[in-house]
């Protein structure tokens, strides 16, 4: 019997090891797996590389993980959102490494990793500092930059409904980075509002098939 359900948030993230690379869904607070991030702070894994669109705001979620000193490096597109005080302070004190990636390139690098592709060419960033040191080409009159696939050891994902096979649905624009991160991580851990009996989610409503998901946990199941 396939059963990917974890009994607690802490149990769900217990596999995350020191030095791991961890993708985290979310566009600002929308789609952010806040409960899993807080469980990860409790769990204590450190020296992490975080891959996410933003770098946390306020004092919760990603900012809590950063404030606890667990993050060595962050790969993101936009770390300067208002309220990103924890990241900004670490950045100015040179206590965190930043790799800035255009958002579409970040997404496509993850998609390439999940889809089994190698390096690919994108027009994004051609003629800018982002292209420096990378192979480039002109194809049908337009310039392109070569980018590499980006995979991670883990993905922490906020979804809406799951079943014990790890099939996922998402709510509104919280879908965001979910589908692509689930594909690009070796071990995807999803927090959901509810876990439904197998067969209850209509097959054509499932956005992320369970093959891409290793662990699911209800966000209210406690640490």
């Amino acid at each position, binding site marked *: 019997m396939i059963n990917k359900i974890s009994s607690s948030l802490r149990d769900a993230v217990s596999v995350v090891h020191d030095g791991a690379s961890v993708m985290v869904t979310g*566009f600002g607070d*929308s789609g952010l797996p806040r409960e899993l991030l807080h469980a990860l702070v409790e769990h204590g894994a450190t020296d992490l590389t975080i891959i996410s669109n933003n770098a946390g705001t306020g004092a919760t979620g990603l900012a809590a993980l950063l404030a606890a000193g667990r993050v060595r490096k962050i790969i993101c*597109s936009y*770390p300067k959102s208002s309220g990103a005080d924890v990241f900004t302070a670490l950045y100015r004190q040179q206590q965190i490494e930043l790799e800035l990636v255009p*958002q*579409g390139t970040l997404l496509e690098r993850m998609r390439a990793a999940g889809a089994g592709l190698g390096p690919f060419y994108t027009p*994004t960033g051609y*003629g800018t500092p982002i292209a420096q040191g990378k192979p480039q080409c002109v194809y049908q009159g337009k310039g392109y930059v070569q980018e590499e696939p980006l995979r991670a050891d883990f993905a922490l994902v906020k979804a809406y409904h799951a079943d014990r096979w790890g099939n996922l649905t998402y709510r509104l624009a919280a879908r965001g980075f979910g589908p692509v991160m689930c594909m690009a991580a070796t071990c995807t851990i999803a927090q959901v509002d509810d876990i439904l009996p197998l067969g209850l989610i209509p097959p054509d409503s499932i956005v992320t098939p369970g093959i891409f998901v290793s662990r699911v946990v209800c966000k209210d199941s406690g640490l």
Partner: protein
Amino acid sequence: MSHAKKLSRDRVAQLVAADIAPGSYVNIGLGMPTLVAKYLDPANEIVLHSENGILGIEDLTPGDPGDEDLINASKARLQLIRGASICDQSMSFAMMRGGHLNATILGAFQVSCSGDLASWATNDREAVPGIGGAMDLVAGARKVIVVMEHITRDGRPRLLSTCTFPLTGKEVVDVVYTDLAILDVVPGRGFVVRAMAEGLTREALQDATQAPLSYHEQLYFIQ
């Protein structure tokens, strides 16, 4: 140059909105561009795109608290219009990069007369940089519209022969709307003034612009 001759931010937004064709799919960026949405006629069914996977957004109705999982690129809550759709972030960026958006409207620090855009970093090493979706938008949208103040707060030109800040895109800008003028970027000709604020002289406009200007045959004045 008299300050009285500058166009208000709302007037500039109105001018941009008037130039968007009915039925267009348009992405509106952070800052000054957000005002443009206010002046779009709903009867024209101009569909606004938000990079986190939404097509068909509008501001919240006053009194509506909104939903954490429905936000725009500024991380402000919004609502869906009838006919709206939601997709994952990877597909959303395929829309941007793949030439499916009719236009993108974004802010800038600097624009050059060859259409280079600088909008994501200054030369201030203390400042946290942020690219977000801007590089993808300018790489792919069919028309790149920049809305910006003509000069900096301390009086320095922003429309230049060559940008001094890191580029967001090379030779990508089609038209610039400022508080002094509307300028088309024409390959081989540079900035061609299409319209300028009523009462402003060509000499004063050139003084506020570091790159050489030429003028459209049907140059008109903006009240």
